[in-house]
């Protein structure tokens, strides 16, 4: 009966109670939402590249190799010679290998030379393949496939011309050999979205009239002539490698790292991604801290609500005392009430989160390439919910102890 009366008491103060519960629910939804975004971002980050067993480049640091080969950030300290590339490609452990050639740019976006195998082998988000949203993959030597962000930012359509600049932030353009947008890729949420992809041969083609990083004055080979040329690269920036058996990964990595002809580095993408995530982990911590503060603020709000309601409830508490309730019953009722409000707030917050996820998931994926999975609450999330309920009970002790003291002082003769 006491529980029923406590519930009816809550109902009698429905508006205040609902506002408090709503504040807790929104805080919980925000906290869990931030958690979802954080874990989603982490998962998306870890899934930037999948299905690739090794990334090979000139010897530097593993994070640096990952940054320039996958994220298109920074530059390679050296290249991987075409002989070494072919030598590695011919090793019996290698199932497939995709070359990557970086160095040129278009506006603020990197240009990447590769082979058609890239579209087949590059996987992201648990094995998803690249897909063309508009147009086709490269057919002609001077065809370019652009990522979704490139198309959106520069408002490019299939058939638009693209002039590649030599190097990064260079004023010298390969304007004598313009490309044509043959296809636009679907949004992936990976650095591919911000990449202009051309064939490896095209990278060689636009440098036919170049020597030592500068255009040869007065020389301009016609495009049709270039198309007939044997365009074999002398070096590539990096290579993505798949092995026949996972058991051979470490052996091949060791062999490449000890490659005698030139200093090379082979990295496991997953391990390097984890290392890189740890570097950006401080932002993750800050995000958790901010959302945690939101929950704490809501709980303090609940405590303030209970405090403000104490005076108007002195008669109610005096009635319970007059009927024989001990002061600790009064204390228990208030703690129970706060716990109930926190629990309802937590459950509504969880429901709000999932409702928000259902609505936002496709929008966030389309806008940011960030995939927010709609999974059952994780153990961590359940602990967070339990923590909110427990914290609600704990903070309510402050007004509850005041009510306890008031009920002792008022006895049953309170007149308000």
């Amino acid at each position: 009966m006491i529980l029923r009366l406590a519930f009816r008491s809550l109902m009698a103060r429905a508006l205040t109670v609902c506002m408090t519960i709503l504040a807790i629910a929104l805080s919980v939804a925000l906290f869990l939402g931030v958690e979802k975004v954080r874990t989603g971002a982490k998962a998306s980050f870890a899934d930037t590249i999948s299905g690739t067993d090794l990334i090979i480049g000139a010897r530097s640091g593993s994070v640096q190799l990952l940054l320039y080969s996958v994220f298109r950030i920074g530059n390679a300290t050296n290249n991987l010679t075409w002989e070494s590339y072919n030598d590695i490609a011919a090793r019996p452990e290698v199932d497939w290998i995709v070359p990557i050639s970086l160095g040129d740019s278009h506006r603020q976006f990197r240009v990447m030379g590769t082979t058609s195998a890239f579209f087949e082998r590059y996987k992201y988000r648990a094995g998803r393949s690249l897909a063309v949203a508009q147009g086709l993959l490269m057919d002609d030597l001077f065809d370019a496939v652009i990522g979704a962000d490139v198309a959106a930012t520069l408002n490019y359509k299939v058939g638009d011309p693209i002039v590649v600049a030599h190097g990064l932030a260079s004023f010298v353009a390969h304007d004598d050999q313009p490309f044509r947008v043959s296809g636009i890729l679907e949004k992936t949420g990976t650095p591919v979205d911000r990449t202009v992809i051309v064939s490896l041969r095209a990278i060689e083609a636009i440098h036919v009239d170049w020597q030592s990083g500068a255009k040869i004055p007065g020389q301009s080979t016609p495009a049709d002539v270039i198309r007939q040329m044997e365009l074999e690269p002398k070096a590539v920036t990096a290579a993505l490698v798949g092995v026949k058996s996972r058991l051979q990964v470490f052996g091949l990595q060791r062999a490449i790292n000890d490659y005698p002809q030139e200093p090379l580095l082979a990295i496991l993408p997953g391990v390097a991604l984890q290392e890189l995530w740890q570097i950006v982990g401080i932002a993750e911590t800050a995000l958790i801290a901010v959302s945690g503060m939101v929950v704490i603020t809501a709980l303090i709000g609940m405590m303030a609500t209970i405090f403000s309601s104490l005076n108007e409830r002195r008669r109610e508490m005096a009635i319970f005392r007059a009927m024989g309730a001990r002061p600790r019953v009064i204390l228990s009722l208030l703690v129970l009430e706060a716990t109930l409000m926190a629990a309802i707030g937590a459950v509504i917050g969880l429901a709000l989160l999932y409702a928000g996820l259902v609505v936002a998931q496709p929008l966030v994926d389309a806008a940011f390439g960030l995939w927010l999975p709609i999974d059952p609450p994780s153990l961590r999330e359940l602990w967070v919910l339990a923590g909110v309920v427990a914290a609600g009970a704990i903070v309510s002790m402050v007004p509850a102890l005041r009510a306890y003291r008031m009920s002792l002082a008022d006895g049953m003769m309170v007149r308000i």
Partner: protein
Amino acid sequence: MDSDTSILSLRDVRYRWPGRASFALDIADFAIAPSETVLLLGESGSGKSTLLSLICGTITAQAGSVTVGGTDLASLSAGKRDRFRAEQIGLIFQQFNLLPYASVRDNVLLPLRFAPQRRARVAAPQEEAHRLCTTLGLPEEAIAAQAGTLSVGQQQRVAAARALIGAPPLIIADEPTSALDAATQATFLELLFAQARANRSTLLMVSHDARLAAHFDRVVQMSDVTSTLQGAA
């Protein structure tokens, strides 16, 4: 009156409210016999509320003894005093003090929740609550209604039913008719007296209205009870 045979006895009681040195309540001897109905008359500020708090055990005398049903309240711990009050005393307040959001039935049954012996005296609590309400003149449809939705007269009947349920030996009524008109007062008192007699309960009513005197076995002036009284309570 011998304290051994009385249901309520106060001997050489002294109480001062903490922080209020100007007020002191001293009662040399005051006792009520079982089944007696007593009207305690006193003006506002005469110490009636303090006296009721002492009898109910929510405050304890700094000297002397307050005995209810043969038990000295000072000998009980705070928790046991709460339980004892719930078991032995039915309370009716001037402002009714019902839980407005709870049903009439839940309000009436509330004291039984904290008083196992009192509850044990009621074989069927729901039916007893219903009987008391109807006997005291509440319409059937009001019993399931929220107490806060009833008229003043109906609320006072609910308060009386709550005090009477489980037949506590002592019923204390603090100005229970002050909010009622004369006709309703008389009806209410008749019903209350009838139920108190049926339960063999003792009734101590505190009021400033001397017109009620005719209804009681004994009328006591607050000034006759208190040997020294200063200030207000």
